[in-house]
């Protein structure tokens, strides 16, 4: 019995190694994605074009401009005169914001009176607009650091003190890649046998259906697991993502999540009749929601209530919470028992569903 199971595994491995193109993608895709998310996809704003219209031309206004130039957040161009058509500046994308320093800026400050600065922002990217407003306000108040305050703020940023994007994205990427490989590839592998009619041949062989499925699924499990570890190692070496928690716990949770991916793939394979349908279904039903609604990039707490509910039935939501917890916060099971048990529960449901669906298919 064991031997027939192994021969199914071997047969699947031969399939994998024969399709060079797909194998190449399975191995290089995660690395490319890692490089992309590590280098290119960063939400840290910089080099924003700002036009400062200095109507005052006083020592005070020049000091303010110096303060703005000192941050690498802005690329400053100073206009001596006024700015006639702000709308036109935004339309030809000369700058993303215009700061106007009023004529009486110097005198008012010297007199100790409050001054207002007009800041026009092209808010078609609202996130950037928010940052611009925050930064300019901060820089402007910097010029008055000597003022006596009733109290001050002392911020401390935990877990990711430089607020970099790479530690945020890279653990989440593991969730995405594991799912992509486990769900997508297994569903295609199973449907391919259906399409070519070899599934029937396998079923009339003395191997039990469960063994066939397990045998087909096992090689992809290894591939997915390997890719996940690769991301973790390369990510921590290349992008300095610190691994605070236990690596063993990470691997255990990855196994749990691999099972999720596999059962999703099996479910898709029982629904789909052709490989292209399987692929479309796997992408739209599993990969896209896991990418967009799991908190991988976009914060769940900011979504409309109904989508927050949807995100709670997506396994990736819990896995991302778990893996970020372990990697960045050094969480152990004590902190994570809730998402971990939900993930296990979802696993059980998915396995039961896919076995049922598979049995119905067979009969």
């Amino acid at each position, binding site marked *: 019995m064991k031997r027939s199971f192994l021969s199914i595994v071997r047969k699947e491995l031969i399939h994998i190694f024969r399709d060079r193109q797909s194998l190449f993608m399975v191995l290089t895709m995660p690395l490319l994605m890692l490089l992309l998310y590590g280098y290119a996809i960063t939400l840290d704003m910089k080099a924003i074009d700002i036009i400062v219209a200095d109507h005052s031309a006083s020592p005070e206004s020049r000091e303010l401009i110096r303060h703005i130039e000192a941050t690498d957040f802005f690329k400053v161009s100073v206009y001596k005169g006024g700015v006639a058509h702000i709308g036109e500046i935004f*339309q030809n994308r000369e700058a993303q914001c215009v700061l106007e320093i009023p004529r009486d800026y110097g005198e008012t400050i010297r007199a100790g009176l409050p001054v207002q600065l007009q800041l026009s922002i092209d808010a078609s990217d609202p996130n950037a607009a928010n940052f611009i407003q925050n930064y300019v306000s901060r820089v402007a108040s910097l010029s008055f650091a000597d003022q006596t305050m009733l109290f001050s703020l002392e911020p401390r940023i935990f877990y990711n003190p430089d607020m970099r994007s790479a530690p945020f994205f890279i653990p989440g990427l593991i969730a995405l890649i594991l799912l992509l490989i486990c769900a997508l590839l297994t569903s295609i592998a199973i449907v391919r046998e259906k399409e070519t009619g070899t599934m029937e041949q396998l079923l009339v062989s003395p191997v039990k259906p469960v063994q066939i499925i397990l045998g087909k699924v096992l090689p992809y499990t290894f591939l997915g697991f390997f890719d996940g570890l690769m991301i973790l190692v390369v990510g921590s070496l290349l992008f300095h993502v610190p691994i605070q928690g236990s690596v063993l716990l990470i691997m255990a949770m990855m196994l749990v999540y691999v099972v999720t991916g596999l059962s999703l793939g099996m479910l898709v394979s029982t629904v789909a009749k052709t490989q292209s349908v399987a692929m479309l279904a796997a992408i739209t039903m599993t990969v896209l929601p896991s990418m967009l609604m799991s908190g991988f990039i976009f914060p769940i707490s900011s979504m409309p209530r109904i989508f927050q509910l949807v995100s709670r039935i997506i396994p990736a939501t819990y896995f991302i919470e778990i893996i970020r917890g372990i990697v960045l916060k050094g969480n152990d099971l004590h902190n994570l028992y809730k998402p971990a048990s939900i993930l296990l529960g979802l696993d059980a449901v998915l396995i039961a569903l896919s076995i049922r669906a598979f049995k119905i298919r067979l009969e």
Partner: protein
Amino acid sequence: MGKIRSLVKKEFRQIRRTKAYFALIFVAPFMQLLIMGSAITNEVKNISLVIVDQDKTPASREIIDKFSAVAIFDYLGEARTTEEASLALDDGLAKAVIIIPRDFERDMERGLSPSLQVLIDGVDGNSAGISLGYITSMAAGIQKGWMMAGQLPVSGGVQVIPRYFYNPELDSKLNFVPGLIGLLLLMITTMLTAINIVREKELGTLEQLMVTPLGGTQLIIGKIIPFTILGLLQFTMGILAARLVFGIPVQGSIPLLYGMVLLFIMTTLGLGIFFSTVANTQQQAMFVAWFSMIFTLLLSGFFVPINNMPRFVQYLTYLNPLRYFITVLREIYLKGTPFRDLWREAVILGGMGLTLILASSMRFHKRLK
């Protein structure tokens, strides 16, 4: 001309027979815009907040009242100790903690300028920065109120009055929805073209077409016309969906928008034909199309401003047609930018489209021979 017309007719007949196309073109844009447009937001709301009050004075209670009254924060309640609060951060329950130290009020009265400690979960650096910004400006507001009430000299200081153009509510939908329309157009037209051609290869009907008196050029044109029409239809559905589902109107000129779409469709169809020459099976075609799509998407400025990227990646994005099209969409959609400020994008898109279509058609010919 007549030959091309009959080819186009044949393609349309096939398209009409495939029910999935209808779903893709008429239903998918609404569904995807609805789901993605609502889920994708990088606004920061409902920041879960815990406060530790070690002072227990009217001043500290006022701070708690002010923070719990604002909708941006999801005030979870008080924690008794700092340890309890940082455990809430560890467990992921709270994203921010404010600690009001003992003798806060007394130190203020003595002019010692005590400090409020703010602990922030920095895992999501972007949200952390924005949350800190909110907390800072709330604190500044409270401070100012107290100084005015206490007849203290509110020394001038600079106040920045922001004026937000094009999107005064800072609603991230306005930014994402036009981009999504472009993205959907790219996905559907590229994939459909690639799969359609590879399918004919797989079925062997491409050879049959080759032995008819049709030239290779006519064959390609016969493929391009129907998919251009499908793309335009799908784009129109996208515009309608944006208007009906999210109430986002086009500010700029609609003919200009369609002109740009035509230029962009040339590039997507060119890509589709190219993929069909690389792949032998539909599965491979989908794989290639899907993976190249991820990169096209991430390097287009859709999620992440291109300015944020390192220099060499920025150079890479110059090769990405979606980059230009998303710029064009956002400019025309939100700002009503005229052609005068968009001719560069038009020239580049047109150039890319022509090159892609010509090069991949030539490759297609060679492959067939």
